[in-house]
């Protein structure tokens, strides 16, 4: 498949935004249970939510560049019963709304009590919003990944590992960003967030490697024999039916030599996982190092997403082997 930069930015930006929001709410839950010192609501939660919202909005804006008719984008919420893309279109703005409310509630100190637990713990409105936002963030990971995982003949994508990867990689980049952000906004929780970022990046490395190994062992189900229905081991395409290019010759191949694909694989393994792991481990609570870790990881995830698309081999390419 041809990696479209609008989709690369969409999936990586909203992944980081979701991860950042999950990190903020994780800190709030730990602080609520008195396992962490409570950070300043204004500087940490409100500004952090704003940052998460900016990432989500950035992803949404990027997605419009993928559309041929962006002015009709509102129509895409219609078929949520059957289409994961439609579900994503609904869940993304819903999450954006909840993140906005969550940040706003922290900014204005609007914390009406919702529930008092028997232990005396007070759950206020921000906790309620955080729970809803967490559910939406995970639902969005599921929707985004299922857009790809639900296509059975794109076999590199059609795997539960796709969902696991989107969740873990979004979470890892979000927690790394949260750690870097906390170094300025709430230094007392930096260590905690950097630790979780380390764990998520490591888990992401494991699951992404698992999908790389799985994809390397895939045997194609469709062959030129099934594509044109002729049983013979030697079939060569002589003409695709036209001399110039067409949508079919542009949309479904990355158009780069196989060597590029291999190099990008090693680049993203290093940039999205190995280098951030080293930086996170070495950073301590140094803000610039953590920011560098996020920057490297984000660029690495862009390369990872590029590879994710480029590696997927669409069966329609069987009909376009003789591209002049």
């Amino acid at each position, binding site marked *: 498949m041809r990696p479209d930069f609008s989709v690369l930015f969409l999936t990586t930006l909203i992944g980081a935004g979701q991860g950042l929001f999950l990190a903020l709410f994780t800190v709030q839950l730990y602080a609520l249970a008195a396992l962490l010192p409570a950070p300043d609501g204004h500087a940490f939660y409100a500004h952090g939510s704003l940052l998460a919202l900016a990432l989500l909005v950035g992803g949404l804006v990027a997605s419009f560049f993928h559309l041929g008719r962006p002015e009709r984008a509102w129509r*895409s919420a219609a078929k949520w019963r059957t289409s994961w893309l439609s579900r994503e279109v609904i869940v993304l703005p819903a999450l954006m709304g909840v993140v906005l409310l969550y940040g706003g509630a922290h900014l204005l100190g609007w914390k009406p009590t919702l529930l008092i637990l028997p232990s005396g713990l007070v759950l206020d409105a921000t906790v309620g919003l955080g729970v809803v936002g967490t559910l939406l963030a995970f639902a969005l990971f599921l929707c985004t990944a299922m857009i790809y995982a639900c296509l059975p003949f794109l076999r590199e994508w059609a795997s539960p590992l796709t969902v696991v990867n989107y969740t873990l990689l979004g979470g890892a980049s979000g927690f790394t960003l949260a750690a870097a952000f906390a170094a300025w906004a709430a230094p007392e929780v930096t260590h905690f967030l950097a630790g979780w970022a380390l764990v998520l990046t490591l888990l992401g490395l494991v699951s992404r490697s698992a999908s790389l190994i799985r994809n390397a062992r895939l045997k194609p189900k469709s062959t030129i024999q099934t594509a044109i229905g002729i049983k013979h081991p*030697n*079939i060569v395409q002589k003409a695709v039916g036209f001399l110039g290019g067409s949508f079919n010759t542009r949309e479904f191949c990355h158009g780069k030599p196989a060597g590029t694909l291999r190099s990008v694989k090693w680049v993203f393994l290093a940039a999205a996982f190995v280098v951030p792991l080293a930086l996170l481990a070495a950073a301590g609570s140094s803000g610039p190092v953590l920011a560098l870790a996020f920057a490297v990881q984000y660029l690495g995830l862009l390369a990872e997403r590029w590879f994710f698309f480029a590696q997927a081999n669409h069966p329609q390419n069987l009909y376009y082997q003789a591209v002049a």
Partner: protein
Amino acid sequence: MTQLALVIDLNVCVGCHACVTSCKEWNTSGSAGPLADMHPYGKDPTGAFFNRVQTFEVGEYPNTQTVHFPKSCLHCEDPPCVPVCPTGASYKRKSDGIVLVDYDKCIGCKYCSWACPYGAREVDPERRVMTKCTLCVDRIYDETKPESERKPACVMACPTSARLFGDIHDPDSIVSQAIRDNAGYALMPEWGTHPANHYLPRRRTPMHIHEDELTRSDNPLKVDGLLPKPAKSEPSLDDVMSW
């Protein structure tokens, strides 16, 4: 239930591209607006087509067969491109099984083309929406045309009648009979899409040459050999030489 479909006889197709050009001609002149046709005389012409004819060589020299392979939307009975569409622009008609795109609802996200294993859908680069074969839906129901012309443009154009059109759910239709009698098959059955369009396989046409076809019975050079043998009583060279 009706399921309109094409049946394409690979044994008869000569790869002339008449179906491609007639398809483009009909569908670029319709009410849906012209199909893109960009830089047709330039260096890199491109555009949207609903139908392509590809050519494959099967076997190894000298035992090869050239197969011309017309390729268009197969109007699957379980189309994977339809449920993924977020707007409902892509739909399958209950009344006749044709898979269509509502060009006014399509947002051009290309997701349906990813979901089609056959590469049957093409984005129109000028209208910026997804386009595909409509089975000439604006032609086959046109009552101003005589009954015999209410067929897709590609079927009308095929000079060898390699393309048949009809309802594959009607066991007596010309297409159902062709599929039954000539072992019609579907493409990429492994994905369970149940394509409505079927292809009829190549059939070997063996040539039998009999001995008498190689020798002309009235060849003047051989005419002596056909003269009757001299009778036993007639004089022969043996009579002269026999002393």
